[in-house]
């Protein structure tokens, strides 16, 4: 039985359990739902919950654990073979998996029988040719060991999925039966369902938290690995970014400072554009605009936030860059030699950030109580005096929070930089020169033919970690300020 069928069957058991549990509870109360502790719906839901939750939990754990278990068993069975030079056990295992998958495909397409796949030997058949015939291309001919591994692999996986299916079904039926047996008038089904909902919410929240922690650890281990290969001092204080492209063999300069500088410079220009424009438009929208104008203009500004950044990148490359060259290029001022520059990326990124600043600031300005405005108008202040001297100071912490969120967004932006600012890592003050940022370099270090054990590739994790720490710091700072602001009116 395939996985999707298994899930459907469990759901069907749950649906049946719902109907039966509901009916049983009603019957135990003599058909009078008022005599029940909970509404009949809760009894049904309780049974369905007991059918679904434990079964799916076991299913999930099994699906995660089975490959690990099978891998270790297959590895153990292959422990006697010697690994060729330049290869590793990992490579052998990936060969095993590939052959096993190929055999699956072959059986499915009817190129061989199930028994044939099990008893196949390298002496009788050319497996490479056979699998090539069903569309699975192998890099080299299959060694007897790999074939043996693949057969063990298939066998274990097959047994595993049969056991899993049986176990999941038994648990689903058992859970449903357990809850069904308890469905009588006195059973507090409503409270149990309430707990079930709590568990659902808690698990949703913990997925988010655990993923963050997982990402952090993945970054951390690889970063440590990188610093084992490359001196940390050279990374943090090096002023030259020149990774060697051979992939292996040192002689790479991996100083983070030019990238950090590029990141900050571009973000700074972006904020220079986004903060005034966003803030002023927020002030206009929340204080001056009529409800009609507001209802049209606000969604229009927020559309800017929905444009994919790659489109902004194209805009930078094809529109803003050439315009800037025609204004500052060698025909006129001679400051700019090409369309890709800090200025190009900064301006376009600033446009992208306008809705962040304006939308958040608008909400925050609206949250300033009307009583503040009344108080100020009542003393004979004009509208702009009120905004400058009462509303903005009152909203300032929140606005700073909005700006910091926009800043962390700017620091993490990649696409606009790749297309708008170029790829040259440079320490320069001229905003019309091409520079690059941390994110853009992470992309270029990991794409292409990267050996993941070399410092040139691992540096991406150190860069990612640097970025993570930077934006995390900014976000925490922003949250701290926003929280402080909240306390003011409560």
């Amino acid at each position, binding site marked *: 039985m395939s996985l999707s069928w298994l899930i459907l069957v469990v759901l069907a058991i749950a649906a049946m359990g719902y109907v039966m549990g509901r009916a049983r509870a009603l019957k135990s109360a003599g058909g009078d739902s008022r005599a029940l502790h909970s509404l009949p719906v809760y009894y049904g839901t309780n049974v369905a919950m007991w059918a679904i939750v434990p079964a799916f939990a076991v299913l999930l754990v099994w699906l995660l654990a089975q490959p690990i278990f099978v891998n270790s068993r297959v590895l153990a069975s292959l422990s006697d073979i010697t690994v060729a030079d330049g290869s590793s056990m990992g490579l052998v295992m990936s060969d095993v998996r590939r052959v096993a998958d190929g055999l699956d495909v072959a059986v499915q397409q009817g190129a061989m029988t199930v028994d044939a796949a099990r008893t196949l030997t390298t002496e009788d058949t050319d497996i490479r040719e056979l699998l090539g015939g069903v569309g699975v291309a192998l890099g080299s001919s299959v060694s007897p060991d790999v074939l043996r591994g693949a057969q063990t692999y298939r066998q274990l996986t097959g047994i595993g999925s049969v056991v899993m299916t049986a176990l999941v079904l038994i648990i689903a039926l058992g859970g449903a039966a357990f809850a069904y047996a308890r469905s009588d008038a006195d059973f507090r089904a409503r409270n149990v369902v309430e707990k079930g909902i709590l568990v659902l919410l808690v698990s949703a929240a913990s997925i988010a938290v655990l993923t963050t922690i997982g990402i952090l650890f993945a970054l951390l281990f690889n970063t440590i690995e990188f610093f084992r290969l490359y001196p940390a001092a050279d990374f943090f204080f090096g002023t030259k970014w020149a990774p060697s492209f051979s992939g292996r063999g040192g002689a790479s300069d991996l100083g983070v400072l030019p990238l950090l500088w590029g990141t900050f410079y571009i973000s700074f220009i972006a904020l220079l554009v986004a903060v005034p424009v966003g803030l002023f438009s927020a002030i206009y929208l929340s204080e001056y605009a*009529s*409800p009609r104008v507001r209802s049209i203009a606000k969604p229009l500004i927020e559309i800017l936030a929905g444009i994919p950044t790659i489109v902004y990148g194209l805009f930078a490359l094809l529109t803003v860059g050439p315009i800037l060259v025609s204004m500052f290029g060698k025909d006129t001022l001679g400051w700019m030699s090409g369309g890709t520059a800090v200025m190009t990326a900064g301006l376009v990124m600033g446009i992208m950030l306008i809705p962040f600043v304006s939308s958040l600031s608008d909400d925050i300005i609206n949250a300033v*109580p009307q*009583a*503040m*405005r*009344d*108080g*100020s*108008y*009542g*003393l*004979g*202040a*004009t509208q702009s*005096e009120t905004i400058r*001297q*009462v509303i903005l*100071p*009152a909203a300032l912490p929140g606005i700073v929070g909005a700006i910091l969120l926009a800043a962390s967004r700017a620091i993490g932006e990649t696409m606009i930089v790749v297309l708008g600012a170029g790829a040259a890592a440079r320490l320069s003050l001229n905003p019309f020169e091409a520079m690059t940022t941390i994110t853009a370099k992470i992309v270029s270090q990991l794409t292409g033919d990267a050996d993941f054990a070399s410092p040139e590739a691992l540096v991406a994790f150190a860069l990612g970690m640097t970025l993570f720490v930077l934006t995390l710091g900014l976000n925490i700072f922003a949250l701290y300020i926003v929280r402080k602001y909240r306390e*003011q009116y409560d």
Partner: protein
Amino acid sequence: MNDMRIVERDVETNDVKIAAKDVQVHYGDTHAIKDVSVDIEDKTVTAFIGPSGCGKSTFLRCINRMNDTIDVCRVTGDIRIDDQDIYDPKVDPVQLRAKVGMVFQKPNPFPKSIYDNVAYGPRIHGLAKNKSDLDDIVERSLRRGAIWEEVKDRLHAPGTGLSGGQQQRLCIARAVATEPEVLLMDEPCSALDPIATAQVEELIDELRENYSVVIVTHSMQQAARVSQKTAFFHLGNLVEYGETGQIFTNPTDPRTESYITGRIG
């Protein structure tokens, strides 16, 4: 009720400060104020009483044109302060509000220091020549707001950190700092406890020396305690207006009598 003995209270007649004639206010389709005409005297506390939604606050907000900040609100009729039509196009509502101060129902100090709260009005109107002048204005206003003694040592602490009663007196001090001629108070004690209320009421009585005070209140005892003149509003109409003592002891309109005896409200 002891407070009802104010019939004998000596009420001298003063000049008319605010003269309203045939004032109508519409909120969109709602006719909130109907044909209200009233003469409010200088150096007098005038109380507006009436059930909720009767238009007393709306009428109060007409006097300093605070209703201008509400889009759907339309005011017609004639309101004159010192014989100057305040709805005349030549009148700048911002200037008018400097002359007609307002204290609101809920204390609304700005999230600034106590000093800056009081200095706010004088600063925007350029009332102080220099820093020491401003210091004087702040001290004088806080004294007039009967809060100087409590805050003189912490003028630079935030105004929002004061207690409710102190905040309201700070707001009164803030309103008098711009040297207004009329002080409008919209239920200034409704958010305060009895002790703070007593302090504010005492303050209102003192303010009468210099200003024409108009107070909207839900408490009839308060109206009786602090005011010399009382106006009773009902369903957007001004039902009765007269000496406070006379309104509370011998009302001419049966609706006034029903209200002050608690039968309508």
